[in-house]
Each structure stands twice: as structure tokens, then as C-alpha cells.
């Protein structure tokens, strides 16, 4: 992967050109780079490509003080944590050079806070391996505190051929692979087959487009099979997935992957059609709105159980929990079905696809031995056998194609075919900027703007107005972030 050791130059150039009036050493370097590009020198400037290509492979083995003790910050709890601990123990037994200390941070938000705090306290407070929420990738790149995984891949001559391409695609910014996919999920359509059958729909063929979803909901309501056709949880990722399924970007500069995003692009024809669909579903009482955050986050899933609204879109990571809840007697008449997330419009868009949710594993800039040790551990965690254990233990989607031939995994998937759905839709997603998902340092605020706009729809705000409000709030957040980089 010779692409992976290249500095993301165009991003630096862009921010130097649009940057603030002040000059730091960093800025000077960037201006020099900008001048270089302007003069047609090309992309590979001496001194800028730095030590990225020289990842210290073998440094842990060659370290004087063995074993090298590394720390991994994670946000896993319950079954996920137990599986991670099991894999870590396996790793320690498999070799003698590296010891791993797992430190739990409860949630991705807590990890963000803890990592930011640690950054101001100095390198010694930072972990060596960092499990970091997918959407915050650009912020971590901008912190200049991580080493791209791609440089380790290149130095180790490690093959990425078996990884699911759309997953790697998410972690590539400006051609650099920044992290390894680890705990990956995707949004799917959950539905109660019994209610669909009662409404005269084929329970084995759930709707695959938003138009079909709407007519299915209509049938469910008009036949009296349920009060609502579905629950719509106003999660920003759902809207962003509809955009990628329609092969459209969320932010400019190829979803922020060919240069730093400077504005959103979602306020376009597709974005407006998705918003009108959403508001139409709510206004026509075909869907009920449920909360994307807070105490009501599971209301959409509970509504399937209670029979109020038999369909909803949610993360595939919830499947295990749903199945265990459904074993309770009161839900005996629910027969859960899992389908791929529907595409916008009336037929699936060519070149449309989905991007991942979940988190990736990053190598933090530390001493050579620690970086190498971190890489060894990441390699282990994302190997086919470990990914099979991981997928079975947690319900996450395996990141390796070879994991599917693992007997434990194939047995588990045979008994619950729903697990195959998120894997299939990620596997069949093309590698292109729209399907990669967007990256921006202001991702949190962009997501909040979209979430607010979706919430506004339920309060009667016209779709077009809600969307343009979201775009202008997101744009001002992007501007504010970009001038600080």
C-alpha cells in the first residue's frame, strides 16, 4: 500500500491558504508546502513526508526492557468487554514481548474527554492503543498525536487484501490509512415479521427503498395491524446513510477525503427529498418519532415489542440485545426480521452504499517500542480468527472476510441469519467518497445540526427550511473549526 505513507498534503495546504492571520512554525511549514505546490514541485516534498514511512517494525522485540507494557483505552462494557479481555489474554499467551493493560473509558464521549485532557498533560498520560469513535477521525488526525496505521502496514509489508474494503475506505483520508477497523456496525431495518404478514406484506421481503417503506407503513396502518408503520429515531447517521446510499456526499471535497471539508453538501435535491420523506412519514402518522439520545433511545425498539410500530432503523450492534430481550414471555408473538437499510427513492442507486459505525484502533505517537507493540496488538485483534471470536461474542460485524469460514461464526450466523445482513451490506458497498462517509473536525456539531433538523420536522418545521437551517449551522461550525486548525 504505497498510498499509505503519504502526508495528507492537500489538507495542510488548504488550511494554510484559508488559515488565520497568525503564524506558527506549523503554519510556516504549511505555507512552504503551499508555495511548493504552487510552483509545481509536486506532492512529495522532502522533510514533509517525515518519518511516516519509517515505522519502527520490530522495535518491541528489540527493546532492552522486555516485555514492553502498553495501555489500550477502550469504551467496551458487558459482553463486549469480556470478549476484549478474552482476546487480550490470548494475545499475551501468544507472545512474550508485549503486555497489554486495558483501561475502560465507559463511552466514546468519555474517551474523547479523557484523551483531550491527557493531550494537555503530555505524552506519558496517553494510551498506546486507542479505540476511537469513527466519526471523530478528523479531530484525532488534527491532534497530530497518532501515527497512521498505514505506515505500519507499509513497513510490515502487511496485506490488507482480506479486510472488508468499505471498512478500510472509512479510515482513509487523503490516501492515508489512519486506523484499523475493529468494532464495526451498520444500520439495519428491524421489523416484526408477524405484523408485516398481518398487513398482507411478505415478511421475508422487507422494503428496500424509502418509497417501499412508506407504502409498507401505509398498509400496516390502514390494515390496522399496528398504530404506526414504523418508528423514526432522529439519529443523524440515518440521514447520512440515506445520502451515501444515494451516492451523495455530506460535505464537500469528496466528503472531506480529498482535502479539508469547508462546507456541507447535504442541502441538495437528495437531501431535500429525504427530509420531505421523513416529514411526510411523521405528518401522515405513518411513523412515530422517537428520541435519538437520552432515556428514550430504545423506544423505537420497544415499540416493535409492544406492537405500536413494527419497523425501525437502528444499529446492527443492538441485535444481540434485542434478541435477548425478545426471549421474554411478553414478546412471544414478535418474530424479529432484519433487512438492509433501505435506499432513498424508488429503486437503489447504482454506486450507492453504506459506511460503517463503531470504532477503529489507532496507534498513538510514543516511543518506537511502544508503537511497534501497539501495532502487534492491533494486528492480532483484527486477525480472522480473533475477529470471528469478536463478532460472535459481541454482535459486531467481522472486519475480515476470512472470519466467515470460521466454524464458530458460521454456526452462530446460521442460527441467527440477521447477523449476515450488516456484513453483506458493508461488503457490497463500493469504495468511493460518498460511501466512505464524511470526515470533518466539526463532525460532532454537524451531526448535532442534522439531529436538530430532524427533531424540528416533528414540530412542524417544513422540510426545506429545516434542512437549510441544518446546513447553515453546520457550515458555521465547520468554518469555526477550520480556522482553529
Amino acid at each position, binding site marked *: 500500500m504505497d498510498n499509505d505513507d503519504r502526508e495528507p498534503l492537500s489538507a495542510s495546504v488548504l488550511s494554510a491558504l484559508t488559515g488565520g492571520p497568525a503564524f506558527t512554525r506549523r503554519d510556516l511549514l504549511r505555507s512552504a508546502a503551499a508555495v511548493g505546490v504552487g510552483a509545481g514541485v509536486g506532492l512529495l516534498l522532502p522533510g514533509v513526508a517525515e518519518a511516516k514511512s519509517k515505522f519502527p517494525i520490530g522495535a518491541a522485540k528489540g527493546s532492552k526492557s522486555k516485555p514492553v507494557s502498553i495501555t489500550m483505552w477502550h469504551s467496551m462494557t458487558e459482553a463486549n468487554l469480556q470478549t476484549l479481555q478474552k482476546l487480550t489474554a490470548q494475545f499475551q499467551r501468544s507472545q512474550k514481548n508485549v503486555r497489554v493493560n486495558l483501561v475502560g473509558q465507559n463511552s466514546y464521549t468519555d474517551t474523547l474527554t479523557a484523551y483531550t485532557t491527557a*493531550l494537555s498533560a503530555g505524552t506519558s498520560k496517553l494510551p498506546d492503543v486507542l479505540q476511537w469513535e469513527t466519526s471523530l477521525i478528523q479531530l484525532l488526525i488534527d*491532534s497530530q*498525536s497518532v501515527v497512521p496505521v498505514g505506515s505500519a502496514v507499509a513497513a510490515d509489508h502487511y496485506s490488507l487484501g482480506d479486510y472488508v474494503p468499505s471498512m478500510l475506505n472509512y479510515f482513509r483520508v487523503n490516501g492515508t490509512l489512519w486506523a484499523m477497523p475493529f468494532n464495526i456496525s451498520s444500520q439495519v431495518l428491524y421489523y416484526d415479521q408477524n405484523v408485516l404478514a398481518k398487513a398482507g406484506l411478505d415478511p421475508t421481503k422487507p422494503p428496500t427503498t424509502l418509497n417501499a417503506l412508506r407504502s409498507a407503513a401505509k398498509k400496516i396502518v390502514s390494515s390496522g395491524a399496528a398504530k404506526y408503520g414504523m418508528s423514526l429515531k432522529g439519529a443523524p447517521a440515518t440521514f447520512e446513510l440515506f445520502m451515501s446510499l444515494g451516492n451523495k456526499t455530506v460535505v464537500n471535497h469528496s466528503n472531506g477525503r480529498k482535502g479539508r471539508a469547508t462546507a456541507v453538501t447535504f442541502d441538495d435535491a437528495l437531501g431535500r427529498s429525504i427530509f420531505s420523506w421523513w416529514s411526510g412519514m411523521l405528518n401522515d402518522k405513518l411513523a412515530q418519532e422517537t*428520541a435519538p439520545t437520552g432515556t428514550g433511545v430504545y423506544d423505537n425498539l420497544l415499540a416493535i415489542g409492544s406492537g405500536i410500530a413494527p419497523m425501525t432503523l437502528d444499529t446492527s450492534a443492538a441485535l444481540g440485545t434485542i434478541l435477548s430481550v425478545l426471549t421474554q414471555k411478553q414478546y412471544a408473538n414478535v418474530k424479529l426480521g432484519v433487512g438492509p437499510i433501505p435506499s432513498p427513492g424508488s429503486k437503489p442507486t447504482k454506486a450507492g452504499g453504506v459506511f460503517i459505525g463503531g470504532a477503529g484502533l489507532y496507534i498513538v505517537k510514543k516511543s518506537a517500542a511502544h508503537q511497534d507493540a501497539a501495532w502487534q496488538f492491533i494486528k492480532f485483534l483484527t486477525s480472522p480468527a480473533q475477529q470471528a471470536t469478536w463478532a460472535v461474542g459481541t454482535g459486531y460485524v467481522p472486519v475480515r472476510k476470512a472470519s466467515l469460514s470460521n466454524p464458530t461464526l458460521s454456526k452462530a450466523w446460521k442460527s441467527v441469519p440477521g447477523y449476515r445482513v450488516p456484513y453483506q451490506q458493508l461488503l457490497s458497498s463500493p469504495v468511493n467518497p460518498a460511501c466512505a462517509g464524511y470526515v470533518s473536525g466539526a463532525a*460532532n456539531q454537524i451531526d448535532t445540526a442534522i439531529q*436538530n*433538523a430532524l427533531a*424540528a420536522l416533528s414540530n412542524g418545521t417544513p422540510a426545506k427550511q429545516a434542512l437549510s437551517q441544518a446546513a447553515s449551522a453546520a457550515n*458555521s461550525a465547520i468554518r469555526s473549526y477550520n480556522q482553529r486548525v
Partner: protein
Amino acid sequence: MSARTLRRLREGALGYLLVLPALGAFGLFVFYPLVKTAYLGFFLAPPTPNLPSHYVGFHQYGQVLGSSEFVSDLGRTAFFVLLTVPTGIVIGLLLANLAHTKVPGIRAFRTIYSSTVATSTAVASVAFLTLLNPQIGVLSYLFGKAGGNGVLANPHWALPAVAMVTVWQNIGFTFILMSAALQSLPQEVLEAAKVDGASGSVRFRQIVLPLLSPILFFAAVIGVIGGFQSFGQIDLLTQGGPNHASLVLIYDIYQQAFQFNNPGYAAVLSIALFGILLVLTFVQFFFFQRRVSYASD
């Protein structure tokens, strides 16, 4: 140097020595942070704190204070203060008047009315969070807002709901203030008015209110300052949402500083808040002081 000058100097020195601890504490915890905050506003903060800041002078001040977000913040904050301060004072005054009678067991009512002063913002907020819960909340039921996502998730009702909690919590404090003031009113004036045949409402409007004006003024100043700085209930009830509907200035400061890692932006907002409160307090002093009677003091 005459003996007198020397003595004066020594007294002066002693005076400074005596205020030194207070001055030190103020300097360390008030003046230094104030100056430092103003200074931080001159720098564009990097996205993560390990990177260098950029000096931009007054550029950030201009940009932040000229933004539409700041204007909306201010509007919401002013609305919040308008919702909380006058209602709080009126209710406190009414309750104090009710409790200002000599009937058996009135002490129990005084204790009840002033009890909210002993309730922390967190406790009050969590209690109201339950009362306003769309599924199980009694208040949601009474307001006919049961079901759906509830008042706190409604952009039109979120800020008034937070204001209601704030008013409820402030009642105790204003009640104590007003009760104390009522009890210290010069009885001879009220008795003279009574002898002259003034009715209860006339006495209240013509005598009690003017005599209470210093304490009303005090309650207004404290209330406005407190209203501008209300944070806990917003954080616990709405987190500034939905769709920024309850995003008041102080909450924006918090979000910018601690959620978006943007201390420069937050510093500018903080200085703006300081300036606004300073100006408001001056305005209150200059315009309303003339109408305030300190005759009884």
C-alpha cells in the same frame, strides 16, 4: 517627616496588611482569572490542547460577538431572565405577605415557603425531570402534554419549563428576603395609615411597596445576575436543546469550553457576559436607585 505623617503611614500600612489576605484571595480567584480570560480571548484555540494557539488580537472578539449565534444566545438569555426574575419576586412577595400574619401555625407555612432555598439545583432539576417526564410525569399529565417526547424536548416549551424550575427554586430565597423586610418595616407608619383610614390595598401600594423598594431592588439585581448565570438546571434538564431552544449564554460558554474544546471562543463569551452584567448592574443602580426609598434605614 512629622510624627503625624508617620502615624498615618503606619495606620495605612496596618490597614493594607489587614486586607492583604482578602486581596490575595480575590486576586488569585477573581482578578487573575478575569485578566487571563480576557487574554485567552485574543487566541484562536487549536482543536486539541496539545497544539499551539494562534494570536489573533481582537479578531476573535469581533467575530464571536458579531455572530448571529451570539445574538440568539443573548435573546434567549434575556427571555429567560424576564421569565424568572419578575415572577420570582412577585411570588416571593405574595407568599411573604400571606405569611406575615399572626395566626397560629404560621411558622410551619414560613418553613414550607422558604424550604426551596435548602434544595440544591441538582435535586430540584432531577425532581422536575421526573415530574415533566412525558411517560410518567405528573406535570406532563396536568398540562395535557403527556405522551410524545415531552415539554423538555419541545422547542417552544423547553426554556419556559426550565424557567419554571428556576422560579420554583428561587421562591425560598425571595420569600426569606421579603419576609425579613416586611418584619423590619416601621410599624408606626403602618399604624398611622390605618388610623387615617387607609385600606389594606392602599397601605400595601402606598406604604409597604415604597418601603420595600430597597429590598425589591436588591432582589432584582441579584435575580438578574443569578438568571444570567443559571447553569445547573439547564445542564440537567435540556443541555441547551432541543435545537438550541434553551441555549443561554452561560451554557454556550460551557459547551464551547468543555465540549468543543474551544476555550478562546468561550473566553470571549465570558467577557461578554461579564460586560453585560456590569452594564446591567450599573443601569439598575443609576435608573432605579432614584425610585428606591431608603427612608427607613
